């Protein structure tokens, strides 16, 4: 493959071509086939993708709004085009970035240049060099790591993308999957050949730093037989978008005996509706491990799904959700056991404070053919005050009696006795609370790469700041 770094390509986001146009052109209409056609043209879509987008738009228009779970009333769905119009791009200036976001950057110690990029203003942070090096190292082991748009045009990958793109998450899945199919832009394509085990984790962080990526991005990862990969998505610094909708899509194909770890820390700005869809298909003896940290957004719907499709396939889900003031985070996971001797393990923690609401929702399906399947679900919630809410909605659907299924849920509050104990050793009330929360989150942070664990602890500390009142 070419050594040329492709990061610049991401700038050709679907918004750029509208950059100079008058927004009012679109304000009174929904998304039209003309808009989609223009996106296709701008991106130089192959024919099949152009048709795919238009078909998805049709599905989007026919599909009713999501009406369960957290309220998304604040999302201006009749004017959905406003979420994909140019104003949502980065032509805002630093002064218009909300104070809390700026302060967070400050406290996380992120350099000004990167702050501006993360906040969606100013020049793109120069992460190209790091990104380039990672790509080089991956390429040496035969791993393809590139952006989806360029891969689509590469004759070597065109077919594999066509045969996998939105096959796991079809546009018919739900309204926002359809929207994604119509307007997706940016994202990663990773292909790991048979038997290749990549030691360094690949991070989409560098990609998301690129202008315009990250709102409707598509991640497609294919692991061939007996290969392994660790992919890290997002970063713990808050990403600020004026337009408050994120409808990304992640599709992971884990081949026979392959193993994929997919880690995410997301800290969207608190005006964001995060309606994301992630799914993995795991073949015989393969393994998917999800590590998921949800800190940001105003409303989230996020339930990574694992389909265990071959004998002995396994899934592990470790997640933490932290809902603060004004946040309603509906998160969890879905696991479908569709073959014998498959196993799954789910371990989640949710924290709510200052009136935040966190809901844990899980679905475990054990199909008729999943003889000898094992599943264990463990969820714990911690509410930091009386205004906060925590719900647990586990669903288990078992179609065979030859399986082993367990579920455990715990909901608690921080006890006054614990606070007093820590304070009697010199910790301030705030530090005492932060320490308890950090301890509560510990088995999740242990799963994260070190620098992310450190950042997550910083985040917890930040979120806890001012929680004593």
């Amino acid at each position: 493959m070419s050594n040329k770094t492709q990061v610049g390509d991401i700038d050709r986001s679907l918004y750029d071509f509208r950059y100079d146009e008058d927004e009012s052109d679109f304000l009174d209409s929904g998304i039209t086939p003309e808009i989609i056609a223009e996106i296709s043209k701008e991106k130089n879509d192959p024919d099949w993708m152009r048709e795919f987008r238009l078909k998805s738009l049709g599905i989007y228009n026919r599909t009713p709004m999501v009406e369960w779970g957290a309220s998304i009333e604040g999302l201006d769905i009749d004017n959905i085009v406003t979420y994909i119009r140019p104003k949502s791009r980065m032509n805002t200036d630093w002064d218009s970035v909300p104070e809390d976001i700026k302060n967070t950057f400050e406290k996380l110690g992120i350099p000004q240049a990167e702050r501006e990029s993360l906040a969606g203003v100013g020049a793109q942070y120069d992460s190209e060099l790091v990104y380039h090096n990672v790509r080089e190292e991956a390429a040496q082991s035969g791993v393809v790591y590139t952006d989806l748009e360029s891969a689509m045009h590469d004759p070597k990958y065109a077919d594999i993308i066509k045969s996998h793109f939105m096959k796991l998450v079809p546009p018919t899945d739900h309204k926002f999957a359809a929207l994604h199919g119509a307007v997706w832009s940016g994202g990663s394509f990773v292909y790991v050949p048979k038997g290749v085990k990549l030691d360094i984790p690949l991070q989409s962080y560098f990609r998301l730093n690129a202008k315009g990526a990250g709102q409707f991005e598509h991640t497609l990862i294919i692991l061939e037989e007996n290969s392994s990969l660790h992919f890290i998505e997002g970063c713990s610094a808050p990403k600020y978008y004026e337009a408050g909708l994120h409808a990304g899509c992640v599709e992971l194909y884990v081949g026979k005996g392959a193993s994929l770890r997919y880690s995410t820390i997301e800290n969207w700005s608190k005006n964001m509706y995060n309606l994301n869809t992630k799914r993995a298909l795991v073949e015989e003896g393969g393994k998917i491990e999800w590590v998921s940290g949800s800190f940001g957004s105003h409303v989230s719907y996020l339930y990574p799904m694992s389909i265990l499709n071959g004998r002995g396939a396994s899934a592990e889900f470790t997640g933490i959700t932290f809902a603060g003031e004004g946040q309603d985070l509906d998160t969890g996971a879905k696991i479908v056991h569709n073959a014998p001797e498959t196993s799954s393990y789910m371990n989640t923690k949710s924290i709510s404070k200052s009136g935040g609401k966190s809901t844990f929702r899980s679905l475990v399906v054990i199909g008729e053919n999943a003889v000898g399947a094992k599943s264990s679900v463990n969820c714990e919630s911690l509410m930091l005050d009386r205004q906060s809410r925590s719900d647990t909605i586990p669903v288990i659907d078992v179609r065979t009696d030859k399986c082993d299924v367990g579920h455990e849920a715990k909901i608690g509050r921080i006890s006054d006795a614990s606070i007093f104990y820590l304070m009697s050793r010199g910790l301030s009330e705030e530090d005492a609370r932060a320490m308890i929360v950090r301890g509560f989150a510990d088995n999740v942070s242990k799963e994260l790469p070190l620098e992310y664990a450190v950042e997550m602890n910083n985040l917890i500390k930040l979120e806890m700041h001012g929680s004593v009142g």
Partner: protein
Amino acid sequence: MSQLLYVQDLTVSAEDKELLHGITLSVGEGETHVLMGQNGAGKSTLGCTIMGSPEYAVTGGKIFFGGEDITELSADKRAKLGLFLSFQNPVEIPGITLSEFLRGALEQVSGKRMKLWDFKKKLKAAMQVLDMDESYADRDLNVGFSGGEKKKAEILQLLILQPKLAILDETDSGLDVDAVKVVSKGIEEYRRSVGGSLIIITHNDKILSSLSVDKTHILADGRVAREGDGQLAFDVLQNGFEKYISEGK
């Protein structure tokens, strides 16, 4: 000896019920006091109130430490002034190791950052005094510790944090003979290396035998029923409370 702690006519309530009705006592620098009394007499209430537990409300009187009025101070500020309470039932904190907790606490009370290497050395030395397996340092704070291990961990904190005054609330109760010996050794080490003051709440003379007790206070029904020298503690343990409480009245 100069006065370190002075509790002046202290009344304390919890949930609108008065538990302590005007307690006065004073502890000098380097002194060892024993606080005794039957269950419910108010010993733990007094200990926790001196430490600043928000569970108890001071409705009258004052607490002075090193000449400063600390009645209104929060527990962390008292800890920074050099107060320490060894809890009867130490709380379990999952996900935080004993070592990381202690290092954080030491930083708070000493006000300076200690190099990890130096801290580990200090911790190791203190653990040796207490016959504690080093692996405890990496275990979650008090989680899954036996009763004896929890009490040892409290004394370990005492040795690391080196307060000016430590209140030991039944640190010896529920321990077997060997564990009491180890805990006593830790307390002696504290006396030797720090020379701080002690208020020992106990029902047991074993922990006292190796210490020279300066003063004994006997509480009954939330009042100081009787005070005396160190010998009084041993007499009470031998003959029971009744005699001494009624004499006091």
